[in-house]
């Protein structure tokens, strides 16, 4: 009798294409299932709201503000590090814009200054972690306070009205509407996600991001430049934090020097809910993007339910604690 006949059902199931597919993308499938469940709950709870297009336009408007940071932060976390400085880097980039715009009158130059400031702030995180050897948790809490302080000193705590930018092309490109419907910040988020996905999955840099976070010693022995890899992920996170800060400010037509603090929780929650491991080595851009929209929807749900924003904190905190706990338990079970 051939062994194929004797193979138990589970063995044959393992060979089916669907099983392979499910085994290859468990995180992605999991997060989509979570999204669908939450969506159905919202549909049942508030069918009027969730059957109209408005709520989705609203998601696409506000979720990008932190999804734009959660995406590059995913890469930092995959390398086994963390960046907690991004809320201040958002404001620091805008302060650079403020200074240059006020000085030259050119918002394009101001925008460029904002991006450069973010890139440098991210690079500094990389230097502190890679060259100096400070644990990233501590280093980026330090730079979070440092940049907030710099912002406060330079702006003297004063905000900046941005209405002058409303009629400009930059406004239209960053926060206008595509085809009269899709908020441009959503389009940018998808673009950033695609570019990051490409680098993470189809470029040597991304391969090194995974290897560095999985086993840094193995990666070093096999010739991966782990220091450069980490520095680059920090720099990109800084750059996109500043970009997100600009998008928020130009979207709301105002820059508050305290900007960013409100994004710490939902950004981190998006990364960890999206399945990126706190231990490094695994994580996906897809997971982070879907999780960002789940987090955005939960926020809308809390508001729709008439709860105060204190609830938002509680729920995001809970999501972070639960996601990392589940990850830890799964990691223990598998080793």
């Amino acid at each position, binding site marked *: 009798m051939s062994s194929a006949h004797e193979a138990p059902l589970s063995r044959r199931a393992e060979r089916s294409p669907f099983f392979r597919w499910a085994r290859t993308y468990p995180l992605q499938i999991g997060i989509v299932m979570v999204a669908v469940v939450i969506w159905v709950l919202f549909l049942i709870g508030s069918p009027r709201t969730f059957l109209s297009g408005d709520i989705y336009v609203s998601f696409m408007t506000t979720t990008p503000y932190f999804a734009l940071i959660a995406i590059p932060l995913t890469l930092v976390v995959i390398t086994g590090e963390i960046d907690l400085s991004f809320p201040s880097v958002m404001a620091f980039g805008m302060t650079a814009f403020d200074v240059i715009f006020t000085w030259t009158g050119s918002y394009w130059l101001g925008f460029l200054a904002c991006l450069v400031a973010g890139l440098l702030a991210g690079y500094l995180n990389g230097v502190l972690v890679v060259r100096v050897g400070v644990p990233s948790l501590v280093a980026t809490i330090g730079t979070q306070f440092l940049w907030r302080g710099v912002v406060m000193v330079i702006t003297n705590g004063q905000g900046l009205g941005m209405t002058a930018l409303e009629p400009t092309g930059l406004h239209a490109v960053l926060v206008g509407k595509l085809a009269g419907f899709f908020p441009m910040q959503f389009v940018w988020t998808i673009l950033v996600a695609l570019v990051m996905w490409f680098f993470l999955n189809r470029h040597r840099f991304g391969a090194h991001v995974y290897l560095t976070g999985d086993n840094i010693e*193995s990666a070093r022995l096999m010739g*991966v430049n782990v220091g450069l890899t980490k520095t680059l992920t920090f720099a990109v996170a800084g750059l996109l934090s500043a970009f997100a800060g600009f998008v928020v400010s130009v979207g709301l037509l105002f820059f508050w020097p305290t900007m960013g603090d409100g994004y710490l929780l939902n950004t981190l929650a998006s990364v960890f809910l999206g399945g990126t491991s706190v231990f490094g080595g695994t994580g996906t851009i897809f997971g982070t993007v879907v999780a960002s929209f789940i987090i955005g929807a939960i926020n809308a749900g809390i508001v729709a339910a008439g709860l105060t924003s204190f609830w938002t904190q509680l729920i995001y905190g809970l999501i972070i604690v639960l996601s990392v706990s589940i990850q830890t338990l799964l990691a223990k079970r598998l080793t």
Partner: protein
Amino acid sequence: MSNVLTLKNVSKTFGEVAALHNVNFHVGDNEIVGLLGDNGAGKSTLVKIITGYHQPNPGGELFWKNERVERLTVPKARDLGIEVVFQERALADKQSLWRNIFMGRELSDRLGLLDVAKMRSETRRLMNTAMGFTSSAVTAESTVKTFSGGERQGVAITRALYFQAELVILDEPTMGLSLSETRKCLEFVEGIKKAGKAAIFIDHNIFHVYPVVDRIVVLDRGTIAGQFMKNELSLQELIDRLYVVAQTGHLESKN
């Protein structure tokens, strides 16, 4: 006879610890060198200098095919044709088999774009040939976490052989392997010899080392205690002399 690799006056200190002291060492063309020595003798440190992972102390020189190499790095060493099966295996547990095979040497173009399809298909080919995986549960996408010790070693060895290295270094490759896996591993070393390439073979078990090597070098507390061609010495004589090394730190060599 010309050499693929020559080390002159190589020392290495880690803080207070002198792991290597004035080591002169070479590997000839198509030569299999057995490197013996107690735990802590400095064998792995020597390997990591040859592979560019550690820099030797100032004054130490490294020659590849009789040309001086300055500031060797791991990527540079791999480009020269040096591949290592590390004592610690150097795998990434949560990554797929194909990512482990091509770790640090991903198939990519000049812009760094990966040829993922090629890496997957090459891995599948190697699974059926070099690694000898027969279970259908293992695919190129499987993570290496669940692999047995022998399978992990198979991955590390396959990786070292894949790039057609001129010099393959195996650092205690039979550690933790079953008898049949050990035999397969020794066959790999013989295969290197037949393919006209060179190798450094490190193993505690002289019964493993003796049959497959051309020359034996004994390292003791960071210095070369002695060396001799295999045909100068029977296995029993070698064992006797290793006792002497353990006591005196010197090996009487016939030259």
